[in-house]
Structures are given as structure tokens and as C-alpha cells.
């Protein structure tokens, strides 16, 4: 049930974010999902671009008390507001790049190829990658502004982000798959971008939500976990440890099944797809709350209904 609602939502959001600009919709520059600004006619922009660019870390702090400074803060405030409002729903339900990855996963399922797995150690090791990317996308703009780094390094994450070449394909634009021979830096970045795009496409074909394992947006959203209106909770005592949730999780989160005391079980990598909640066969274990309203509560009844042939 939830799964179906989610798929419909994802597709609607995909169309809305990728083509919405053509209908005059402008959602600004602060979306906490990969609504890639390189897609012409998109209806809103991924905040990571603003964050790296002149409305983020490329912004000189000295100018804070100006209109531009106000914009920097405003965009950041909107970003935080959107996160507090919907938390990781941005990832699992809205992000068009996530939807794209889900399509690849559906393709894999159709072809009957099994999903790849990481060993627990590798999986835990991969968690660090997104912090490296985050540092990269913060430090380089700062270096450009204050240390005179070559301006071809600007928007470093966008330049290697797989969404940049891939998402514009949906509007028929293949330009971002080009090698840029302008100079060594652009050449390197464009080659890197193409290689990464290929790696992510292959990766997300063989593994659900492969890119999400590295997405630097996740830690940013996670920062506001404590004050987010959406809460993902677990009644650890009621859990049977069956591991259904771990197995169904597209990003292989063990915390939900293994947590034995804490209530808050939204892991940093969680994309709130709610697959774990759907697959939990025990009553009242996992719940999703918006403010004090409960959106979903696991139950055996739901599980049975959902898994009926």
C-alpha cells in the first residue's frame, strides 16, 4: 500500500521537478533533493549548488550584511525549513535522482539479476565517503574565495555529480556527457563526471539506491534530525530481530533491526522509504510520526495484507 503510494508520489514529483519550470513553477534554490539546476525547465534547484556557489561557501563573509548576505541566509533558512518539514522524505519520496535509481532497480528486478551486497565492513566504510564529499564541496569554494584557487574549480561537487549529466537527459540534453577540452581542469572534471555517472548507473543497477550511499545531502538533512517534525521511532522491546527490515532496506541499514534501546532509529543513511515499516511483521514496533500524529505504525495485520499473493 505505502509502497504504491510512494511510487506514485515519486513519479509525480519527478515530473513536477524536472518539467515544472516549463509551467512557470519556481521553487527557488533551496530544495534538499537533487532537483538538478542543469536541467533546463526544472522547477526548483538543488541546494547543494547554492551551498557551493555564491550563495554559500563562495560567498565572502565580509559581505554578510548586504542584500546578497541576506539571500545567502534566506536560502539557507528555506533549506532548513524544508528539511524540518519533511526530513528524509525528500530522499525517498521526492528526489528525482532517487527515482531514477529506483527505475534502474526495477529494471534489474525485471531482468532477474540478483542485487549485489556489501559486506558489513565495506558498507560501514562507505559511510565516510559522503563526509569526504561534503568536505570537498565546502572547502574548495572557500579556497576559491579566500585563497585564490582557480575559478574552474567552482561548484566542485556539481562538476562531478552524476545527476549533472544524467538528469538533463530527460529533457533531451546530452551536452553534459561531453568532454570539455577547454583546459586541464575542465577536462579532468568532465572526464571524472562521465566516469562517475557511468559508475553510478552501473552501481544503481546492481544495488538499490547506490548513489544514496554517498550522497552529501544526507548528512545535511541528518543534522536536523532532532528538530524535524517527522520522526521515525522504534519500540525496541517489541522487536523480534527478524531482520526483515534490514533485508528490505534499499540502503542496507542495520540499525533499525539491531537497535535495542534507543527510540530514534533514523540512521544517517536512511531515506525514509518506509520499506522497513512495511515489512515489519510485529505489532507496534516501528512508527512514523509527524508532530504528534502517527502516520504509520507497523502491524502484523498490515504485513499480511501487504504480502498477500
Amino acid at each position: 500500500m505505502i509502497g504504491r503510494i510512494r511510487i506514485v508520489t515519486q513519479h509525480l514529483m519527478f515530473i513536477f521537478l524536472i518539467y515544472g519550470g516549463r509551467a512557470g513553477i519556481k521553487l527557488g534554490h533551496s530544495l534538499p533533493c537533487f532537483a538538478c539546476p542543469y536541467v533546463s525547465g526544472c522547477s526548483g534547484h538543488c541546494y547543494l549548488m547554492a551551498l557551493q556557489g555564491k550563495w554559500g561557501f563562495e560567498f565572502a563573509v565580509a559581505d554578510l550584511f548586504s542584500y546578497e548576505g541576506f539571500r545567502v541566509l534566506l536560502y539557507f533558512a528555506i533549506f532548513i525549513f524544508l528539511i524540518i518539514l519533511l526530513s528524509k522524505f525528500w530522499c525517498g519520496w521526492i528526489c528525482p535522482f532517487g527515482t531514477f535509481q529506483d527505475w534502474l532497480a526495477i529494471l534489474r528486478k525485471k531482468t532477474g539479476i540478483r542485487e549485489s551486497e556489501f559486506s558489513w565492513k565495506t558498507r560501514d566504510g562507505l559511510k565516510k565517503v559522503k563526509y569526504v564529499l561534503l568536505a570537498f564541496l565546502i572547502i574548495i569554494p572557500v579556497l576559491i574565495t579566500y585563497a585564490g584557487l582557480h575559478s574552474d574549480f567552482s561548484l566542485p561537487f556539481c562538476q562531478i555529480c552524476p545527476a549533472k549529466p544524467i538528469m538533463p537527459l530527460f529533457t533531451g540534453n546530452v551536452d553534459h556527457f561531453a568532454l570539455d577540452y577547454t583546459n586541464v581542469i575542465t577536462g579532468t572534471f568532465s572526464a571524472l563526471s562521465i566516469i562517475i555517472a557511468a559508475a553510478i548507473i552501473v552501481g544503481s543497477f546492481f544495488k538499490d539506491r547506490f548513489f544514496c550511499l554517498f550522497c552529501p545531502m544526507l548528512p545535511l538533512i541528518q543534522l536536523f534530525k532532532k528538530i524535524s517534525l517527522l520522526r521515525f521511532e522504534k519500540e525496541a522491546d517489541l522487536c523480534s530481530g527478524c531482520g526483515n527490515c534490514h533485508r528490505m532496506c534499499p540502503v542496507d541499514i542495520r540499525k533499525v533491526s539491531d537497535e535495542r534501546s534507543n527510540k530514534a532509529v533514523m540512521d544517517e543513511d536512511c531515506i525514509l522509504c518506509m520499506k522497513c515499516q512495511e515489512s515489519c511483521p510485529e505489532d507496534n514496533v516501528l512508527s512514523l510520526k509527524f508532530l504528534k500524529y502517527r502516520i504509520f505504525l507497523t502491524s502484523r495485520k498490515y504485513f499480511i495484507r501487504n504480502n498477500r499473493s
Partner: protein
Amino acid sequence: MKFLIEIKKCFLSLLSHFFLTAVFLFQSVISTAELNLPDTDIQSNSYLYFQYDAKGKEADGSAYQVLKIRTNNTAKNLSEFDSIEAYCRKSSRPGKQDYMAYRVPVEKLNNEYYVKIKSGNYSIFDVYVSGNYKNNTYVAQTVFYLFGDGLKGSTGKPGLVKLPEYLPVFELTESPQNYWPQTGNEFRFLCRVPEGSGSIKQMIVIIDNKKVSRIFTDRNGKFEYIPAHDIKLNKGGTSSYKEIILLNSINRNGKNYTAAFNLLVHRSRTAFLNVKNGAVLFTVSIIFFTAIVLIKRRTFKYK
């Protein structure tokens, strides 16, 4: 559908481009005799020109551009010129003809002359500065965009005036990447000259980084110019630019009239993109990563 139209447009523009180039070459070969060449090399003559200076945003969000007024003749001090005046025409959209002109103050600082153009919104500016020296009249021109985005819409309403009829004068009639002129773009100009001297081809001197070249207008004063790519620009950052000066000079009744247009170009954003090679790299990477996954995949076999 749109795509088809796009292709058609591309094709037509290519055709017209070839045609025009051919005509131009043909004309320039056979009709040199007709030309009204100035007796001296104008670039060694004096002229006034703009040099782009600081650009930025004010605290209120409006954008500004400072232009330095310079003369090529170092021996001649600007203060020796009389009646240095600056005008500005502002429009909201490229190609929109509802220009309004207003005077811009010329500021002087450490013996250097400046004009500063401000805008609270997205606008296009044509800036003119004229000055006389003895019997000669000089005009410096340029066109640029400003992306102001302020709390206040604009920085006060200037009093509108009629723009003096400078002659000769450049008019940038077509620039393909309006707000981001690039090398390799085709710029089209119209060079207006005093009445009576029309129907002749004029020679435009182009000074691109001390390299001097010449180009001829057609009889109506139209010409196209494609700035060549520049390795130095390519190596610079995304916002690096160069300034190209286009000169036109006319001698009338013993008086020299010279116009110098500053064409600011960035490096080309598209000329060095190679989608084909990119696609090859992409395919190779896809194959490579698929192979890696298939080889490295953990298998569960009961041993």
C-alpha cells in the same frame, strides 16, 4: 517538433553563414580600390576607449560596473580633452528598441577618469563617452549586462535626454549569447557614418591584445566579427575575459572622428565540448564498471 525547428534553424544559419562569408571574401578581394582608406594608420592615432574595471554588487543588491576611460596615446593626458561627456542607454531586453538615454557623471580619481553604471535589475547598457581634442572627436563605446537584484528596483530615475548623434558609431545588432559573449560567437555590427559618406565600405580596425587586424563593412555599414579563441582565456577561470577594441575613423572637413567599441568576450563555453569522445568514455566506463561488478560480486556457494 521543437527539435526539428531547431535543426532547421541551425541549418539555415549555417547556410547563411557560409553564404555571407563567401560574399564577404569575394568583395574584399575584388574591390579594394573603392575603399576610402584613412591616410594614416588610425591605431597609431589617438582614440578614446573604455576599459572594464571593477564589477560587483552593492549592499542593497544592485549590480555595478566601473569603466575606465582611457586614451591609447600615453603622451596625451585625458585632462587635455575638452567636454568629456558620458551617456548611457538602458534596455530591459536584448533587441528591444525602446532605449532611453541618460547622462552619467564622469568621475575623476588620481588623474584617471571613470564612469560607474548601476542597476537594480536585469538590464543591458550601452555606454558612450565622447571627448574632443583639438579638431578631433572621439567616442568610446561598449555594451554589457548587469544582473541587479535588489530590494529597491532601481537606483533612482535618471533624467532622460536625447543621445547625441555620434558619427561614426557602432551598433551591436546581434550577439548570440547575449549576456555572456564568448569567443567564437558571431557578432554583427552596424556602423553608422555621416550622411553622404554612405555606400562605401569602411575599414574597421580590430585590436585584439595588441594584434591588429582589419575587416570591411559592406556598403550599408554592416559587418560581422567572430573573435578567435584564445588559449590564455581558456586557461583562465570561468569568468576570465578579454577586451577587443573595434575602431572606425572618418576624416571629414579636416576633422577626425573616431569611434572605439570595446567588445568584452569570455572564453567559449561550447566550442571545446566533445560529446562524441564523452560518449565513448561513458560507454567504456559502463563496460568497465559492469565487468568489475560482475567479477567482484560476492557469491554464496556452499563449499
